[in-house]
């Protein structure tokens, strides 16, 4: 039952599987994002309160979601590396960081641009925005820590530990709108039950969320192949793979 888990620990398996999965992830992402963006921009009706500005949700919410998902993946992969000493865990953690950081930045900037017409300000020190900003700093910290060590193995382990310590920020970001009365609006989709949005607005959003996840999968696989090659440069299977 655990064979699939242990197979994930094998670099050549990861290399091959990542290569095979990439085109699937990419096509799924293209389809979902294509539909989501078009439907969100054109077919969804304007919001009663926010007018057309609400359409920013179609890029802001998936970015924010991905920023948290990538960090959680990073932390879990690092934990797998630390607990089971599976080096591929560190590889996944290492490549997830720049991807997640870029989406954190994207979430912050799109959120800021959305805030200007809606709240009258580009920035507010409310809990969700602040904790998302802290997330960006955490990403930078993890990336800097990993690269600061001469011994890459030590860098991997230290960065994994830091990522795990910082993971406490993720539920804070997510639940901040529940725990505190703040400027940022509450959960749109995540409630179990009937979401507050009508279908014509909701489906493009779900499509964008799915599309961004598939995109993350694609980019993760692409980077992971490079990372595996970098880490396993001397191995025999790499020699065979490079000859082709």
């Amino acid at each position: 039952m655990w064979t699939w888990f242990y197979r994930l620990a094998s670099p050549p398996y990861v290399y091959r599987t990542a290569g095979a999965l990439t085109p699937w992830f990419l096509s799924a992402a293209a389809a979902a994002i294509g539909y989501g963006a078009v439907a969100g921009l054109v077919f969804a009706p304007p919001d009663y309160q926010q007018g057309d500005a609400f359409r920013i949700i179609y890029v802001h919410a998936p970015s924010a979601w991905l920023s948290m998902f990538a960090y959680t993946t990073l932390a879990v992969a690092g934990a797998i590396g630390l607990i089971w000493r599976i080096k591929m865990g560190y590889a996944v953690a290492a490549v997830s960081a720049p991807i997640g950081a870029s989406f954190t930045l994207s979430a912050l900037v799109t959120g800021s641009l959305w805030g200007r017409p809606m709240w009258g300000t580009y920035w507010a020190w409310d809990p969700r925005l602040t904790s998302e900003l802290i997330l960006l700093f955490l990403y930078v910290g993890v990336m800097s820590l990993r690269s600061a060590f001469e011994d890459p193995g030590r860098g991997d382990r230290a960065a994994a530990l830091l990522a795990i310590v910082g993971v406490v920020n993720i539920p804070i970001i997510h639940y901040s709108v529940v725990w505190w009365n703040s400027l940022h609006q509450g959960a749109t989709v995540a409630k179990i039950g009937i979401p507050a949005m009508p279908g014509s607005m909701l489906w493009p959003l779900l499509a964008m969320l799915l599309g961004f996840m598939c995109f993350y999968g694609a980019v993760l696989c692409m980077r992971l192949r490079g990372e595996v090659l970098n880490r396993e440069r001397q191995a025999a299977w790499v020699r065979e793979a490079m000859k082709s």
Partner: protein
Amino acid sequence: MGGYARFVWPCFALVSGVLAWNLWAAARYQAEARKRAVRALAMMGEDR
């Protein structure tokens, strides 16, 4: 866009940029890694 065009379009443009950068950077990372692996191969004296 009901007057909000100057907020909505830059957002979509930015995110498209982020998506494009991610694809480009990942492809480049993979290509560089491959190049380095091939070079390591050549240096070990095996024929390409």
